[in-house]
């Protein structure tokens, strides 16, 4: 089976070359995106067929001559290949329509298939060298896509921050693999699995994996590049970066920590749980402060990565205490959320891309009332909003529900640290879910509801059929995964079996298609029945009222307590909607405060309100580093203006010191 994905990668790389040639022609977009769509669908099919099978490996004589390049397709890789295939198929189909509005196709088309190839290659790589090669290919191709509109304000800066953070993540992973390869120096994953690193090495490797893969996934405090870079790229690429690339980063973490490191340790679980909880809450709080639609979505990616890491931390904690069934439940919840997030985040980025196409605006405060002008986009976006807010009966709820069920198993754990940390994490998870719902009321309400705030919003047109169809397909997936979660859970069984040695009970056999994590008396959920009940009750209500009571309807101006204001500017904006939450949470986290300037009595100047929000992580972590780098470069600057004799002197001194060190070493 492994030959087929490799073939797809070769095809994608070929397509990248073709893209470079045909980029400037009229049909270039159709060739590249159509080709990517076909290959992605093939990948999806291959992955779905091979997820239940065993693993197949191959060693190709590529790369470093004495190692070769190993590739393998095991259940874990196959599952993430499903996510990659699905996400890239959707993005490619969407781009068939969206890509036509691209002003500079030659800067997108060659890199898009290369990006897809990089994503796929990371997942099937089976030695450290090819993994890191694929990782860097993924980073560089996506960096090129982020920089495709480099003249827009802020984008060049985003690209710079991104490339720095990507290099940093690659470096951390390189060190991590270096530790794991150990004394033998065998870089294949099989050898790393066989080796049993000492506890100190394992701890260091876990932290390095968390830094390396985590910074790519967007874990706080290494998330800084994500809200800059994801919105800067074209929207279908944003969808891929948020929906798929962060998941590939999660794959990297799972591969290293669950597969290569060997037996997990319970304090490793505590670290991952703490990082996950903080990431989830801070991500959503950042999103609430945002009024740029795409940046808001990017911050929500940070939040969802936090939720996924909570699940992974739980799986580590249970795994370390030899509770495989609980570990399997937690890992299933995390992987389910990986799938869900890739679906609804792609959907939401497609929606924001449609809004961008129709209005040219990303700022929510310049939009409004789009539900009238773009009904299809609005409907699909609404489905995405409900799903990401973890509301039943859609899919986001199921994975968060499963995470909660895993949290409920924590009294079985013996360590006091875990017993106390896990309920605290549960509170953080609940807080982030509630805040996410608040944030998506804001995102949907300000963008699509109310009255149009600007001319462009009032004149918006519904986007093309490719875009809306892509959104509808993903919206349908949100619903299907929400009402038939058993199918997804059963699909995940081989993956958790391979990683934790157990899997959740088979769900499709349960009566009425309920899902039952442990046993029926403990907890069960049935999305299908809930949906059917809600539909029946709502229809009953409508029927009864329209049949037996009034169904008359009259249109009139809005009531608004008798003081309707004709200016749409008086509506609540993103900033004013978030004001209560900014005041409650932001005062602590962001040192947020509002300054109101009232003119003196009699003056005609308008009063003004100004909000101040500080980014604690940027100020505490990145700004000092940037300042230090700046200071160092200033301090070393005069080295540039020395005589040749002095440069030679430096070289000579370096040589002598190294020899001296060597002599002393022996």
């Amino acid at each position, binding site marked *: 089976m492994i030959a087929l994905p490799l073939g797809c990668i070769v095809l994608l790389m070929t397509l990248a070359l073709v893209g470079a040639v045909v980029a400037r022609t009229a049909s270039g977009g159709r060739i590249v995106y159509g080709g990517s769509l076909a290959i992605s669908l093939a990948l999806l099919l291959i992955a779905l067929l091979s997820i239940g099978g065993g693993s197949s490996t191959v060693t190709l004589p590529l790369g470093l001559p004495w190692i070769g390049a190993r590739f393998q397709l095991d259940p874990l890789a196959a599952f993430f290949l499903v996510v990659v295939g699905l996400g890239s198929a959707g993005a490619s189909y969407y781009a068939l329509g969206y890509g036509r509005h691209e002003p500079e196709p030659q800067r997108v088309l060659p890199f898009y298939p290369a990006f897809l190839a990089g994503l796929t290659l990371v997942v099937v790589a089976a030695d450290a060298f090819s993994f890191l090669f694929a990782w860097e290919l993924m980073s560089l191709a996506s960096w090129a896509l982020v920089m495709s509109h480099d003249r827009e304000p802020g984008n060049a800066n985003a690209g710079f921050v991104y490339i720095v953070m990507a290099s940093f993540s690659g470096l951390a992973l390189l060190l991590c693999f270096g530790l794991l390869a150990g004394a033998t120096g065998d870089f294949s994953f099989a050898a790393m699995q066989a080796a049993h690193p000492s506890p100190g090495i394992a701890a260091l490797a876990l932290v390095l994996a968390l830094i390396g893969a985590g910074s790519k996934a967007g874990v706080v405090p290494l998330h800084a590049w994500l809200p800059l870079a994801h919105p800067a790229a074209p929207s279908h690429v944003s969808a891929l970066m948020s929906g798929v690339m962060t998941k590939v980063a999660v794959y990297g973490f799972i591969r290293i920590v669950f597969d290569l490191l060997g037996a997990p340790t319970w304090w490793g679980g505590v670290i991952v749980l703490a990082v996950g909880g903080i990431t989830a809450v801070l991500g959503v709080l950042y999103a609430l402060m945002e009024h740029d639609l795409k940046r808001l979505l990017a911050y929500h990616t940070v939040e969802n990565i936090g939720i996924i890491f909570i699940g992974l931390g739980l799986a580590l904690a249970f795994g370390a205490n030899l509770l495989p069934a609980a570990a399997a439940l937690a890992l299933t919840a995390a992987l389910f959320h990986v799938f869900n997030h890739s679906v609804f985040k792609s959907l939401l980025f497609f929606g924001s891309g449609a809004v961008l196409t129709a209005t040219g605006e990303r700022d929510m405060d310049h939009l*409004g009332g789009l*539900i009238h002008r773009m009904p299809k986009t609005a409907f699909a976006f*609404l489905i995405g909003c409900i799903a990401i*807010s973890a*509301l039943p009966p859609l899919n986001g*709820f199921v994975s968060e529900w499963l995470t*909660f*069920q895993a949290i*409920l198993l924590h009294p079985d754990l013996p360590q006091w640290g875990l*017993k106390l940390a896990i*309920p605290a994490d*549960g*509170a953080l998870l*609940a*807080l982030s*879910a*509630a805040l996410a*719902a*608040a944030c*998506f*009321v*804001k995102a949907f*309400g*300000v963008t699509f*509801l*109310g009255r149009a705030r600007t001319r462009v919003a009032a004149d918006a047109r519904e986007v093309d059929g490719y875009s809306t169809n892509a959104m509808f397909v993903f919206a349908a997936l949100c619903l299907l995964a929400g009402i038939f979660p058993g199918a997804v859970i059963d699909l995940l069984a081989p993956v958790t079996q391979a990683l934790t040695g157990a899997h959740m009970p088979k769900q499709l056999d349960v009566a*009425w298609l*309920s899902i039952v994590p442990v046993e*029926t008396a403990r*907890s069960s*959920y049935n999305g299908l029945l*809930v949906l059917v*009940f*809600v539909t029946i*009750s*709502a229809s009953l*209500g*409508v029927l009864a*009222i329209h049949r037996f009571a*009034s169904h*008359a*309807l*009259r*249109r*009139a101006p*809005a*009531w*608004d*307590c008798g003081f*309707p*204001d004709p200016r*749409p500017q008086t*509506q*609540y904006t993103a900033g004013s909607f*978030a*004001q*209560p*939450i900014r*005041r*409650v949470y932001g005062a602590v986290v962001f040192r947020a405060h509002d300054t109101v300037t009232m003119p003196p009595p009699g003056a005609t100047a308008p009063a003004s309100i100004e909000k101040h929000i500080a980014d604690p992580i940027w100020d505490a972590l990145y700004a000092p580093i940037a300042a230090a780098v700046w200071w160092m470069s200033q301090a070393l600057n005069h080295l540039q203006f020395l005589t040749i004799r002095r440069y030679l002197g430096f070289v000579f001194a370096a040589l002598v010191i190294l020899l001296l060190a060597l002599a002393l070493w022996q």
Partner: protein
Amino acid sequence: MAVIPALLVQGVQMALVLLLAPLLTGLTRKVKARLQRRQGPSVIQPYRDLKRLLHKDVVLAENASWLFRVAPYVIFAVTWVAAALVPTFATGLLFSWSGDLIAITALLGSARFAQALAAMDIGTSFGGIGASREVMIASLAEPAMLMIALSVALIAGSTQLSTIADYMAFSAVGLRVTLALGLVALVIVALAENARIPVDNPATHLELTMVHEAMVLEYSGRHLAMIELAASLKLLLYVSVIACIFFPFGLAHGYVIGLIAYLLKLAVAGVLLGVFEVSIAKMRVFRVPNFLGAALMLALLGVLLRFVSEGM
């Protein structure tokens, strides 16, 4: 065929909550009025209000979208389904396993989501103020509710309300600090979620103090009736949840005793709520986060203290 009677009980339960919900609201209003030395409207006034509203025309704002018209039915249906999942007079309802306490909380979250969106739809500043305050309150109430679910589940070993009620009714649970804290927290959450007095005033139409009323300002006719009915159902739901977790008396003794016990519990809850509401002042909006934060802390504290009791 054991399915038929079970289905019947489930159907009775759905009808029962729908019929009783306005009565509970009416009772609370009556108690409040009497305590304020007013005669007050009759306890069946909410039914009359609903009937009147149902027969009136809907006056719809000019720029209302389909979402505004669909939302009342969604809110009503979701709340009704959630209320039907809570054991009222009997446990082990046919469909109670289709959602546990977490799912019920999330269903109410869906109703709130629809309500807040509908409030934003007309594009008035009142809708915005109501929606933004509602989500701020919910952002604390919902985690508190989930933490309560967690602490109850730690004791009963289940998040399924039927199982919890059976456990609480049959086994010697005894006095538990966790449960006491959970009860206090749940009462706070219930007050906030139902827009009752220290948090919001269900009777006010003063702009700056209202949250729930600001959101439904643009609704009229049958739409308003649906929303009012959903609000009553939600109050009944919270009373039922409190009753079935903390006071599961009578649930295990057949349907008739269960029903009588349930009616008694509702009456007691209605009177207590009325007394509480007249004896306390409404809080400033930005005092509410502290109040609800206290609920969240209490629930979390309950979870922590649960481990102390493990000694026995």
